[in-house]
């Protein structure tokens, strides 16, 4: 009989900024800015993969860990509904800023105590408000485990001692890698299609208890100095960096010129270039364009 495989899926807290519209009598709808907390898609894919492994191999125990404020516990309840065996909530003070290093530190102690074989820890994501992104690789570094990011497919070897994954690289390239267990992985969103919770499973979470562990920043600092390696300096509405366009075009209107001054670059798309003529000339023009723009 193969040994028991312990899988941990670490879930990050994702905060989206969204608008909601409030209908108003006789007036235009009022726009309200909301901060919506969601279950990260990459984490859902990781959870789905863990559940698939559990279905294929009998002796598997899945735990889900979340580092977040108390109100985020619904994510762990959802995980239990999906079929997770254990849920661990690392409770933090929502007013404090936790960087990836803090998160990795908080998780590392628990992971080394429990002896997990496979740890899914989320990948870089623009939606994170705690800069959760690289926590997986920092965790691997702290635990001295191998780390594979952007996992696009995964197969546990029959002996439960190693696994083979395909990593998603740029331009559709893939890298097939074999690594011994224990290992830290970060799932990519192409790994699988996450499932929804079935109705009969929705009852299970109420019967299962969630392990709660309070995380204290001072305690982390005492264990590993410095525990926090980044400082949050400012938060503002997103203003994309202007591309390197040195001067405002002469064709811009006054409003566009003002936008140009404010944003430091062109904010409007240049007018389309229209080509007409005979087919041979057109195809030559098209080819010229593609060469100029480095597409060929």
């Amino acid at each position: 009989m193969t040994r028991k495989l312990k899988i941990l899926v670490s879930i990050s807290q994702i905060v989206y900024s969204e608008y909601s519209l409030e209908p108003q009598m006789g007036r235009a709808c009022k726009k309200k800015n909301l901060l919506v907390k969601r279950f990260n898609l990459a984490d859902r894919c990781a959870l789905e993969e863990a559940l698939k492994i559990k279905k294929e191999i009998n002796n598997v125990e899945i735990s889900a860990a979340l580092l977040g404020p108390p109100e985020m516990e619904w994510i762990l309840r959802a995980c239990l509904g999906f079929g997770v065996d254990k849920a661990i909530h690392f409770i933090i003070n929502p007013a404090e800023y936790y960087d990836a290093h803090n998160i990795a530190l908080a998780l590392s102690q628990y992971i080394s105590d429990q002896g997990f074989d496979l740890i899914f820890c989320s990948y870089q994501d623009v939606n994170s408000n705690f800069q959760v992104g690289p926590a997986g690789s920092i965790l691997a570094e702290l635990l001295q485990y191998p780390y594979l990011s952007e996992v696009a497919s995964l197969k546990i070897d029959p002996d439960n001692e190693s696994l083979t994954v395909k990593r998603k690289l740029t331009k559709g390239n893939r890298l097939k890698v074999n690594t011994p267990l224990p290992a830290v992985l970060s799932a990519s969103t192409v790994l699988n299609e996450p499932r929804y919770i079935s109705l009969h499973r929705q009852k299970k979470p109420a019967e299962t208890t969630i392990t709660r562990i309070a995380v204290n920043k001072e305690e982390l600092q005492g264990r590993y100095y410095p525990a926090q390696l980044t400082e949050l300096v400012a938060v503002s509405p997103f203003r994309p960096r202007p591309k390197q366009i040195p001067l405002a075009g002469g064709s811009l209107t006054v409003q566009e010129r003002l936008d140009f001054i404010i944003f430091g670059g062109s904010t409007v798309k240049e007018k389309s270039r229209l080509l007409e003529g005979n087919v041979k000339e057109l195809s030559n023009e098209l080819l010229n364009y593609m060469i100029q723009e480095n597409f060929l």
Partner: protein
Amino acid sequence: MHKEIWVFAEACNNSIERVSLELLGEVRRLSKNGAPTAAVLIGAGISPSLRQTLSQYGAQKIYIVDHEKLLYYQSEIYTHILTQLVRQKKPQIILLGATPNGNDMASRVAARLRVGFVSNCTDLKLNDEGRLVLWKAIRGGKSQAAFMTVGSPQIATVCPDVIGLEKVVPLQTVPVEHLDISWDKNMEKAEVIEFFKGNPATIDITEAEIIVAGGRGVGGVEKWPLIEGLADVIGGAVAGSRMAKDLGCISRDRLVGQTGKNVRPKLYMALGISGASHHVNGLKEAEKVVVINKDRHAPFIKKADLAVIADLQELLPVFKETVTEYFTGGHFSK
């Protein structure tokens, strides 16, 4: 004397990732206070052309670690090499592209050196004290936050295409230092089995750099090989609009738009697509859009960077031939 600013030049298939070249331009701007710019290149059988490219984009010095075992990225070994280099040379800043490998290595190196690291930055500035202020998108891209790292060197990865390429400088000879860094066999925990080069015809359209998409104007399944033929010649992935999907020309996973996928290629060629908002919504982040349509009043024409008014059945065979001639080195007059 100022410490160096480093750019990790990520090489894949004997070419440097575009984001690394963008970063070299950015470092040229940042290092106006006199800090030298150096590029770090790790790989196997590094060709002189890569060195030339790096110097043309602004590298004033190049550190090379060349070893047959470094053909493909391996987290532990690459991390060890870069960490050793940092300990030897002590740069003040290290910038990497926010690619899967770049993010992976940067965070591991930062953790090993116990210094801060910020991933996926969209902007970076030097403050009066010479520290980097790094901006990154948060909350679904609707807000941004500025971070500063603790410790030295300051490490960050920067998203591709947010900076843009600087003009190349004339080719010059720059000092190249070959470094020999050894590693323990125990570090080779993960073993690379195989590298799969992405085939534009089969890769997911969200990862494609060039997309050739067709719509109802192509003329149905019988004429669809025209689109596939062009995509094959220019190395693009085939996609389509809802109409193309309903006509059976493409599968569900090749559909672009509100009910399909959101794509962000460098070039999106829309052939015989009118440009309904449901479709156009899916390609808002495309860098350049070329539209070929015989209807000059189609909504897509106004949204394109280049619009060609022509009949696809006539233009595509000729264009395909022209591109083939160009690639085979035949005569081409501008």
